[in-house]
């Protein structure tokens, strides 16, 4: 085990450094509520790829893909996970271009939901999106506190407070500008550390050939790309990731941050291409852990760290520790600002008389409240896997009718809600996690994650298609933008200009 003090010191240095980067990068640049939550048309394709990658790739990539590799079906499960993680980013290219076209001045996905479908669908999207993002944040804190406790015996509350606290400082101060700038710098560290860390691990394990031979000897299905349970896992996890990420406000913010459609296309495509090897490599260490008999089903989620503890020299463990901290920081700041931005944009619409300063203070207050909640949960070490899966299922049932509203005028709010509910009912009927709650219902089909996620997405898609074909809501996509309240007035007594004059 690595020394607790060394890991604590390393964590402290890393978080303080990035807090300073975030604060200095945003100093004097947050002059309006718009700056705090939107940063419109501000990024080129390199920075966009970096921030999209950093936002989406949390410390979960060190846990879940390895768990899939070790316990849920080896290579095909990991391949499904890797490709599934890239699909939403690819889909954001046409969807993002359409978002920028029909709602050029928008800020959030809930603004679109309200303007396009009305209040019921808006409430649906708001609850699912915020629930998913908060669970993502809490899972990140839980993951990193567990990882540092395992490799160095760092008490969970210390890790949660250090990382959560310093991320909160720069995110509450500099909003989206600070989040995106730190994301870019973090990606410049994450990518080489990932390459060094994983190449080092392959070498200390005896090379890729040795790893393959060990897997074949222990359990040939680990490296069999046609292994059916692995393929099934790959399919449902891809749908789960797709639905959840299409309702990820952090990615919607980055769609608006691109400085044009061409940048959006290149930035999201490059991020999609990079996600695949990142998830794949992380997952292969789950296969390694299983091949060398280091895991049981109960410990599969920490497979990568078990490999580290077993074979890695201290320097390699420290590389992975820094990697894990940066992965958490880069996605935590995104989620904090994303949740605050949804609430701020909605408050601006629901209470038009609210001043810019009140909105700005609300945004900061919400950032603090959400961070405190995530730190508290992370310090406890609860398992949030079931909540994560539930949030994924809700998103899988809703994202198709929601996004269809961007492309067709015919789909009504009622049609979108019926499609979402039909998908949700189908998904819940098969969903193993909720089975104890609905067991009293007669005639339930056998529980299956695959059928739950496929059912939710396919049924909601089919009902959306029928509702679009039969209905003619006549929604005017050209007037959606008019329903957005501008948030670009200077905040009195708020941000400073670069000249240091109070605005």
């Amino acid at each position, binding site marked *: 085990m690595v020394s607790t003090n060394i890991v604590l010191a390393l964590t402290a240095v890393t978080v303080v450094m990035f807090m300073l980067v975030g604060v200095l990068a945003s100093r004097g640049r947050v002059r309006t509520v718009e700056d705090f939550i939107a940063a419109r048309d501000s990024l*080129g394709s390199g920075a966009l790829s970096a921030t999209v990658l950093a936002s989406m790739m949390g410390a979960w990539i060190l846990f879940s893909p390895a768990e899939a590799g070790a316990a849920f079906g080896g290579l095909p499960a990991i391949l499904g996970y890797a490709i599934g993680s890239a699909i939403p980013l690819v889909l954001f290219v046409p969807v993002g271009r359409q978002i920028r076209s029909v709602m050029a001045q928008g800020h959030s996905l809930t603004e679109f939901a309200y303007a396009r479908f009305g209040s019921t669908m808006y409430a649906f999207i708001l609850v699912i999106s915020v629930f998913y993002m908060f669970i993502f944040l809490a899972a990140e804190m839980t993951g990193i506190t567990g990882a540092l406790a395992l490799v160095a015996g760092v008490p969970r509350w210390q890790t949660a407070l250090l990382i959560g606290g310093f991320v909160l400082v720069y995110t509450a101060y500099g909003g989206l500008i600070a989040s995106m700038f730190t994301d*870019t710098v973090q990606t410049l560290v994450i990518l080489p550390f990932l390459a060094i860390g994983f190449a080092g691990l392959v070498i200390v394990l005896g090379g*890729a050939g040795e790893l*393959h*031979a060990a897997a074949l000897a222990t359990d040939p299905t680990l490296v069999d790309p046609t292994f059916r349970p692995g393929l099934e896992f790959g399919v449902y996890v891809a749908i789960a990731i797709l639905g959840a990420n299409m309702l990820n406000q952090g990615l919607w913010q980055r769609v608006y941050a691109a400085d044009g459609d061409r940048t959006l296309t290149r930035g999201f495509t490059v991020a999609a291409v990079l996600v695949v*090897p990142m998830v*794949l*490599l992380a997952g292969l260490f789950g296969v390694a852990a299983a091949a060398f008999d280091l895991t049981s089903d109960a410990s599969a989620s920490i497979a990568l760290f078990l490999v580290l503890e077993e074979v890695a020299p201290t320097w390699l463990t420290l590389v992975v520790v820094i990697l894990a901290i940066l992965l958490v920081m880069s996605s935590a700041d995104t989620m904090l600002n994303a949740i605050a931005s949804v609430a701020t944009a909605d408050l601006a619409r629901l209470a038009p008389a609210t001043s810019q300063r009140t909105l700005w203070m609300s945004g900061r207050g919400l950032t603090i409240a959400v961070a405190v909640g995530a730190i508290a949960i992370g310090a406890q070490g609860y398992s949030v896997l079931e909540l994560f899966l539930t949030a994924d299922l809700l998103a899988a049932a809703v994202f198709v009718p929601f996004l269809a509203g961007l492309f067709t005028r015919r789909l009504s709010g009622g049609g979108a809600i019926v499609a979402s509910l039909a998908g949700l009912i189908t998904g819940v009927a098969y969903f193993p996690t909720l089975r104890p709650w609905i067991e009293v219902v007669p005639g339930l089909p056998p529980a299956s994650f695959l059928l739950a996620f496929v059912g939710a997405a396919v049924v909601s898609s089919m009902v959306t298609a029928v509702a679009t074909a039969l209905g003619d809501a006549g929604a005017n996509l050209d007037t959606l933008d008019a329903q957005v309240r501008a948030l670009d007035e200077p905040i009195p007594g708020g941000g400073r200009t670069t000249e240091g004059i109070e605005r």
Partner: protein
Amino acid sequence: MIVLAPMAAISSALFTALIWGSIGLVILGLGYVVWGLLDAYRR
């Protein structure tokens, strides 16, 4: 076993290519991000 041995060798070669190809792709991606940032800075 005579038939399976070449299969195992091919599978091992593909597995090796998957690992080192992924690491290579990560490094290429880093190159793209750095190039994109420098390009934006120059403009």
